[in-house]
């Protein structure tokens, strides 16, 4: 039985801002360290954490930049404390180097990226969905991450807890790809009884320190994690390392390590990936949308269904791993797919890659900064449908 700090957000019903729900969820998940740098539109998360963390005995620090923020988060996690940062746009770009570091050292951590309009400084106060690809491919080399796509205040809360759980379970960096609309929206949040909330902690070595020989044992997909000061005296290396943690340039060492780093996620993708389907059973036209855009898409489906138009919604709740097998199955059952997102075509690539060849795929890009209203998507769908 887990113990929950008495000052955590109590079970009950709330009308809460997405960013604040994110922070409260992190605290419930066990996050006790936050390092960040001010950036719009993620600031409420840092501000809330600076107020709340000391209450539950945790530490907040505002670092000199986003690079330092994510690195300090990894340091704290290496010492055994669940840790997170939140950022947006340019700050997320600055963190990319350490996405690889987290992957290589297998240090669990959570980044909340409240997506805003880009590229570059873009429109700091307004929404974007342009970081879908960056979240997975932004750092150099081969690695895997997990990325969630919340669509509501409730979901950003649930997914932030889940992000910590997955980070701990797989020793992997997990990203919550929130966005400005979800982050700033004030909406309904139901905090369930704590007993109903699953909290996962990383597996620690169960052998005494003097016996642990291979902290990066490749015979297990996810080796237990020795934490700093526990006596295992482990060398964690950002260099390619062998099972002892020692740097190596050996071909087999490199292959075994890097393939394990990706296999631990790929072999578990069906357990990790999540999605929502709405009226897909008999759909002939499939809308694909995620995050805030999925809210407009859902309204479109509701409206067109009233006209007996056979339309359904496929909403990936994880961008990474992408539920590609389900995408593939659905694509075989429909004649047309419409992908709506606030960018010039990012999830479009995934939909194209995994859809059946003969299906027609239409992309609905939308101006970075603005959430497409239902009417906009509706008009395009009507055009595609010929109704």
């Amino acid at each position, binding site marked *: 039985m887990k113990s929950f700090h008495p000052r955590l957000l109590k079970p009950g*019903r*709330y*009308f809460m801002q997405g960013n604040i729900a994110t922070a409260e969820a992190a605290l419930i998940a066990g996050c006790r360290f936050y390092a960040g740098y001010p950036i719009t539109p993620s600031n409420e998360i840092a501000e809330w954490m600076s107020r709340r963390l000391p209450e539950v005995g945790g530490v907040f620090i505002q670092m000199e930049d986003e690079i330092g923020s994510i690195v300090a988060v990894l340091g704290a996690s290496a010492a055994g404390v669940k840790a997170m940062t939140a950022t947006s746009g340019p700050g997320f770009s600055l963190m990319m180097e350490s996405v690889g570091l987290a992957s290589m050292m297998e240090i669990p951590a959570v980044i909340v990226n409240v997506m805003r309009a880009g590229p570059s400084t873009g429109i700091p106060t307004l929404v974007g969905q342009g970081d879908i690809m960056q979240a997975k491919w932004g750092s150099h080399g081969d690695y895997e991450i997990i990325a969630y796509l919340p669509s509501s205040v409730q979901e950003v809360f649930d997914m932030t807890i889940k992000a910590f759980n997955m980070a701990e379970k797989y020793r992997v960096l997990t990203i919550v790809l929130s966005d400005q*609309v979800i982050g*700033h*929206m*004030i*909406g*309904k949040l139901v905090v369930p009884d704590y007993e109903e909330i699953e909290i996962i902690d990383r597996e620690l070595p169960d052998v005494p320190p003097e016996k642990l020989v291979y902290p990066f044992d490749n015979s297990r997909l996810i080796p237990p994690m020795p934490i700093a000061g526990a006596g295992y005296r482990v060398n964690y290396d950002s260099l390619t390392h062998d099972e002892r943690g020692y740097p190596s340039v050996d071909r087999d060492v490199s292959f075994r390590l890097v393939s394990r780093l990706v296999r631990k996620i790929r072999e578990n993708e069906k357990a990790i990936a999540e999605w929502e389907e709405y009226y897909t059973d008999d759909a002939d036209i499939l809308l694909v949308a995620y995050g*805030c855009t999925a*809210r*407009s898409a*859902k*309204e479109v489906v*509701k409206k067109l269904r009233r006209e007996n138009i056979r339309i359904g919604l496929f909403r990936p709740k994880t961008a990474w791993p992408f539920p590609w097998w389900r995408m593939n199955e659905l694509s075989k059952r429909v004649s047309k797919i419409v992908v709506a997102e606030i960018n010039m075509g990012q999830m479009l690539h995934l939909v194209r890659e995994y859809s059946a060849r003969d299906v027609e795929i239409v992309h609905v890009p939308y101006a970075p900064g603005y*959430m497409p*209203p*239902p009417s906009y998507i509706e008009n395009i769908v009507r055009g595609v449908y010929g109704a």
Partner: protein
Amino acid sequence: MILRIRIGGLGGHGILLAGRVLGTAAIYAGYDAIMTVAYSPEQRGGWSKADLVISDSEIDYPYIDEADILIVTTQEMFEREFKSLVNNGYLIYESSLVKPSQTSLNVRSIGIPAISLAEKTVKRRIAMNMVLVGGVTALSKIIDPKHVEEAIRSTVRKGTEEMNVKAMYAGYDYVRQLLY
């Protein structure tokens, strides 16, 4: 059922808090609610606006183009937002701060002397926003004032609950007397 409420005023009028109280009350009453907030570009002294959607079914698109109820506490926001009121919509305004310069046959206007009511009942002008919240509660009829009271108690700063609840009931009674 869907109810769209737009609240506009000056930063410092407690616009956001009024919206949060109404939204929280709606959640307590079992509805779905979503609020989006907008501000003038300046960090201090500018206008602020809260759009609240309350529905008995799940709300998808969070933004509104038009409002069923418009509440304004500045002339500027009245001029800016009056056009967003739907036919048969309600305009609620703080009657010492706003003088409606235009009207429409299809709009029902209710001026509430919220500042003086706040001053009279709790001796704090700042509780003006809660008087207006009470007024909306009486008007909308979908939220029980008990839920609003509960929402106030869970939302406002500790120690100010009683004052805010009193102010809310002052506004509630004022509008009820007008209506019935």
